[in-house]
């Protein structure tokens, strides 16, 4: 039974129809000791049927440790959002989710998918100018809970 209701599925389908770029959800799981991996995968699985631009690639945190290291992932479940540039090369959006994207985080995931898929960021030119001052690596970890 799908987690998303039929009317919500249609709303998402409509929203995703505006995407101009593919979004690959790189899902890091682990076989043992991950209580929420199955739930996370189940949530992600709801999305590709709603848009042919969304796909899921699964990787194992332990077995695919080079890939995990490439994206700086050390926990499961985690999701990395990737897209492609005009030449078809992979682009890391540098947006990640640690933990199952359930509850409130689901809408954050959808926003992130839309952004990576081509929706313009909701930042003004003034915001972008200020952010351009950042010239060294910055990790922003936003802690949330499902409710």
């Amino acid at each position, binding site marked *: 039974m799908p987690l998303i209701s039929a009317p919500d599925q249609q709303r998402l389908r409509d929203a995703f129809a505006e995407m101009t770029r593919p979004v690959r959800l790189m899902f890091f799981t682990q076989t043992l000791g991950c209580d929420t991996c199955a739930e996370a995968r189940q949530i992600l699985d709801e999305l590709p049927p709603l848009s042919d631009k969304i796909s899921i690639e699964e990787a194992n945190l332990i077995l695919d440790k080079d890939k995990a290291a490439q994206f700086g992932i050390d926990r499961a479940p985690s999701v990395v959002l990737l897209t492609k540039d005009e030449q078809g090369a992979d682009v890391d959006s540098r*947006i990640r989710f640690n933990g199952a994207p359930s509850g409130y985080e689901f809408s954050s995931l959808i926003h992130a998918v839309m952004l990576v898929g081509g929706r313009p960021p909701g930042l003004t030119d003034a915001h972008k100018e200020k952010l351009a001052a950042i010239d060294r690596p910055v990790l922003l970890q*936003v802690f949330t809970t499902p409710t």
Partner: protein
Amino acid sequence: MAFVNPHITAVAVEATEFPDLARRYRVSAVPKTMVNGEFEILGALPPDAFIAQVLTSLGTAPEQPEEQSQS
């Protein structure tokens, strides 16, 4: 923010699934943002305020704020 500046990585962390991280950063109320694991930003702030706090915590504080345009 991660989208517009290639130096920035943004991670949404579900605190109840990773209690060690929640404890390390003393997360009680959410949302709480850690900048480079050192600086805290509490709450859900509008972009102007959030960006200003990120810049301040990095030591690249913006100049005097301009007139606030509509947010």
